[in-house]
């Protein structure tokens, strides 16, 4: 037993130091489809890592591999210093996980849900009570402690889920689309809470579809057809040559009849890509592209452009560009 302990302790030490998550060459095959294709990840302690990608691109598979639910077809991964392949149980002990669906028990009260989750992690009696009180306070759940979870609104449900996932004070939290389907105010509050905890050294691995959430992350990864096609801080990603190729600029064109304008714009020489953002078109154009010429041409079709201005790329631009770029090659790799 003692030897075993030391050996496993040794395995924990073998994880690259400093990183909360360190993964190299993660591969997962389902039959002959390669669902996760050589993903490398390094998430520092206390970082808020935003993991983005279209539905079905392999996000959940990566989370399942990192939490030890799915065996790795090849590659290696350490979470909180533990080798996922060797000590999945230990990993699960140390992480908190909150899934995209509200996955607590509707018919149990807030207190009962917390008691259940706390006891799973081995919290008992005074310790459990103390942790529950602290978590309830942090998440502002006091008014609802005796309410059945099913009768809470979406935002409160997510707070309860987050509360249950952090009862055992994990240093590493996985949140799988935590804000899907909750209102903007609750969304903002949840993120405030995430940043507060990350300030205390908790690392977050968050998947999301909201670009504004990604903008707030300290580190963002974008997965497309099982491959990581972007990895860095939001600023680094915006400076990628693919996003801002030499000799181009980004402009925002505000005009009425936006869909017709888009169709016309896409046909023009000098416009590389164009997409609608609200009431405007975001376009990547050649440096020498004549904007007044474009105004005239659109006016010729009865569309009077109200405003044209140069634009910094947003993360959304980043992902759109990268997705375009990988569209041809972006297919599921098969064996």
């Amino acid at each position, binding site marked *: 037993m003692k030897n075993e302990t030391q050996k496993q302790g040794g395995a924990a030490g073998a994880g690259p130091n400093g990183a909360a998550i360190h993964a190299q060459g993660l591969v997962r095959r389902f039959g002959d489809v390669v669902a996760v294709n050589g993903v490398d990840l390094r998430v520092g302690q206390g970082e808020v890592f935003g993991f983005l990608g279209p539905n079905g691109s392999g996000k959940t598979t990566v989370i*399942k591999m990192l939490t030890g*639910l799915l065996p790795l077809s090849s590659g290696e991964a350490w979470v909180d210093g533990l080798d996922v392949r060797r000590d999945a149980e230990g990993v*699960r002990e140390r992480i908190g996980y909150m899934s995209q669906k509200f*996955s607590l*028990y*509707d018919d149990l009260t807030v207190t009962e849900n917390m008691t259940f*989750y706390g006891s*799973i992690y081995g919290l008992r009696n005074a310790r459990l009570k103390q942790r529950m009180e602290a978590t309830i306070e942090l998440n502002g759940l006091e008014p609802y402690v005796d309410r059945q979870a099913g009768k809470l609104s979406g935002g409160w449900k997510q707070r309860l889920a987050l509360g249950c996932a952090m009862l055992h004070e994990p240093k590493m939290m996985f949140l799988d689309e935590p804000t899907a389907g909750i209102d903007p105010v609750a969304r903002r509050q949840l993120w405030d809470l995430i940043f507060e905890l990350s300030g205390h050294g908790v690392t977050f691995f968050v998947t999301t579809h909201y670009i504004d959430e990604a903008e707030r992350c300290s580190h963002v990864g974008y997965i497309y057809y099982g491959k990581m096609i972007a990895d860095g801080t939001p600023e680094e990603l915006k400076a990628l040559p693919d996003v801002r190729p030499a000799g181009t600029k980004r402009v925002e064109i505000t005009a009425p009849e936006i869909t017709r304008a888009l169709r016309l714009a896409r046909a023009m020489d000098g416009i590389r890509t164009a997409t609608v953002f609200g009431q405007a078109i975001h376009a990547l154009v050649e440096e020498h592209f004549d904007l007044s010429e474009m105004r005239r041409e659109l006016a010729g079709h009865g569309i009077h452009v109200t405003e044209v201005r140069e634009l910094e790329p947003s993360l959304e631009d980043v992902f759109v560009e990268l997705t375009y770029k990988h569209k041809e090659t972006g297919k599921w790799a098969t064996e």
Partner: protein
Amino acid sequence: MVSAIKEKMKQANPFRGFRSIVYKEVLHIRRDFMTVFFAMFIPTVQMIVLGFGIDTNIRQVDTVVFDENGKKESRELIDRLRNSDTFRIREYVHSDAELNDAIVGGRAKVGVKIPYDYSRQLLDRSTAQVLVLIDGSDSSVAGQAINVATSIGFEESLRRALPLRYAIPVEVRPKLLFNPDSRSPNFFLPGLVAVLLLFFTAFLTALAIVREKERGTLEQLFVTPVRPLGLLLGKLVPYFVIGVMGLSGLLFFMRTVFQVPIAGHVLLLYALAMPYLFVNLSIGLLISSRARTQPEAMQLSMMVILPTIFFSGYIFPRETMPLPFYIFSFFVPGTYFVNISRGIILRGAGIEHLWHDGVVLLVMGVLLLLAAAKRFQKKVIAT
């Protein structure tokens, strides 16, 4: 260091999370009693129907008589039929057509025709013939009617063939052991125990797991330190306790209301129920590894419960089944438990008679559990 070792031992515990799951499951059951009630409902209805309602003994079969002969001899024969308790003569008819019509029309299941020359043939010491028409559409009635009618014929022949002062040379006196009055509650209720336990373990456990699948809570549990065994046993135990309570209730009603004596040791029955529950748990697991929704789980459960009802010998005797079904019945776990239950309750059998049934169940349980656990790991956890 000591605490680190303790920590590791906690992780190595394959039943990790068991107590937490039991706590939660008990809360679920208290909040959602309908599911348990539903599972209770079918066995209870079966108990009432089979205990009170159905008498499988064939008695007082409606019979029509066409007595063409109408002499003392023919009336004697009719009296014998009437006294047998199997036949109830409800009508006399006066032609073959009427006799036929009574059976076709369903007014009678048996028609007896005593021909006009019945008494004369007897006096001439040649063979007198009696025609017995039997409605074959109900096979158990038909079988009983044939048997009784034939034996009455034999007795009547012997009586007439032997000189008056001679006794009948051989008399077979069947004695029905263990259920002397062949009461149907004695036959059905011990078998019902098998069905009841199946409902509570396989069915409710499968439902409880599939419900968590539907809600997405199962996915959440897999990311916690709860081990699969802790999860499954934690789910099973509360229903097992309810199952044992159900079993006790059933035994109590069986003993008091339906007056079925328990010849053997009740404790042995509880003890041999364990391997059976083990098999059922594995079946429940197999179902839950397959079904995605609760209705799907119910349908799959029915695929298990129906063979148990039909092939275990609970309702239909296995010995009369066509060979393929008879062979199939060996693969139905209920078969062994019906035998155990009847053995203990009716025949007073002990462990020395029933151990092999227990062993078969245990082996089935181990094989099924291995298959189920593997499937569960592959299809439910790692997907």
